[in-house]
């Protein structure tokens, strides 16, 4: 096998791919949230943000392709890790007890990841692959969240995302080898703070649109 493939496909290499793509998604989420917050400035601000974004043209296409590629790598590698790790312990323990290392986030990573995948497909169908002629993005979003089922689904998905990130963010640093006595407590704290920002920032938007705006 070629050196690059054998490095990336080893157990540590697979973790490296999970870490880098995961960090890309965290960056994307921060940008996505910053844009979405223009909803609080009103209908026109949000529509003009969307227009400016789409006027970027090829840059947007490039970023979208990058995200799609990252998603494929993250999903395929994650699924491989999940399968290999199940296989590594063919006979399970009859009593399982944590010594305090595991967290809600770490023990549910494959499951929260799968829920997020389903959510992202739904989200793209709702707001991306939708006929945008004779309407504005604000109208689309507003009418979607008039249905309380969507409000519930979106808020739930953001809670799941926060749980996933609470482990994923610090874990990515650890995998990259960035575990340092001075910075690790900050990075672990940042994982929780970023998770809370995601769940509150994104999660409150559907509620705001449905009941307040």
């Amino acid at each position: 096998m070629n050196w690059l493939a054998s490095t990336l496909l080893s157990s540590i290499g697979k973790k490296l791919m999970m870490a880098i793509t995961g960090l890309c998604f965290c960056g994307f989420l921060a940008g996505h949230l910053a844009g979405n917050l223009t909803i609080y400035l009103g209908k026109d601000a949000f529509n003009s943000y969307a227009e400016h974004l789409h006027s970027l043209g090829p840059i947007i296409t490039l970023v979208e392709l990058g995200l799609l590629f990252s998603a494929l790598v993250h999903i395929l590698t994650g699924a491989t890790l999940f399968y290999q790790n199940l296989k590594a312990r063919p006979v399970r323990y009859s009593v399982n007890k944590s010594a305090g290392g595991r967290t809600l986030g770490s023990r549910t990573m494959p499951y929260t990841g799968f829920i997020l995948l389903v959510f992202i497909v739904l989200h793209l169908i709702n707001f991306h692959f939708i006929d945008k002629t004779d309407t504005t993005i604000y109208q689309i979003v507003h009418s979607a969240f008039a249905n309380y089922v969507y409000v519930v689904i979106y808020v739930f998905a953001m809670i799941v995302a926060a749980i996933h990130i609470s482990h994923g963010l610090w874990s990515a640093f650890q995998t990259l080898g960035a575990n340092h006595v001075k910075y690790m407590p900050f990075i672990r704290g940042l994982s929780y703070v970023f998770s809370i920002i995601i769940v509150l920032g994104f999660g409150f938007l559907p509620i705001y649109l449905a009941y307040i705006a």
Partner: protein
Amino acid sequence: MTKTINLNLKVWRQKGQNKKGRLETYKAVDISTDMSFLEMIDVINEQLTHKGKEPVAFDHDCREGICGMCGAVVNGRPHGPEMGTTLCQLHMRHFSDNDTIVIEPWRSRAFPVIKDLAVDRSALDKMIQAGGFISINTGGAQDANAIPVPQEAAELAMDAAACIGCGACVAACPNASPMLFVSAKVSQFALLPQGKPEAAKRAISMVREMDRLGFGNCTNERECEAECPKEISITNIARLNREYFKAGFLSAEK
């Protein structure tokens, strides 16, 4: 005055590697709380032998926490509920009268059960053989102070070298990954000048061997450092990752 307790034991019994095993129930009566966990199994085994039954097979050697031979999963915890101790250092005073104790072997595809609680951990030796050593040409020993080693590096290397290779990290890991073991073995050399010449080859060879042996992948669950009887830190795993990336992307080693 020594206190004694009675216990209900559920012990994994398995006749051989490819035999089907199951939990069997035994009563442990009048167990002194001064006994170690292994001495408690000794008592059970004497009773079983007197009854003409097969005693419970379990690994043990020094019985003072330094050899790395003993270990079983006690109520879901490798080496039992105490932090920083091996199974031989676990005393029965940590249990209460009429407790039920479930005793299982280390569970990993790479650690097949030999018999009952004894598992074959030669997978750990194979990873050492793949690169967990330094090559030294024979000849006259040079002066001990010829190679300067910072005190901090020596301490960190010693912390990593405290690993006794018991396999509790594999047993504790939800993915049965030996990353804490491999990281300790890579770190103890990577931190010292003597380990530098073979650092890249060591990191690649040991990780490749780990993958070949059918262990799981590390997902930073941190159960290993919580269960390690020598309290080895996962900062060693971060160091292993750095060593591996350096070797994989920056060295000429393939």
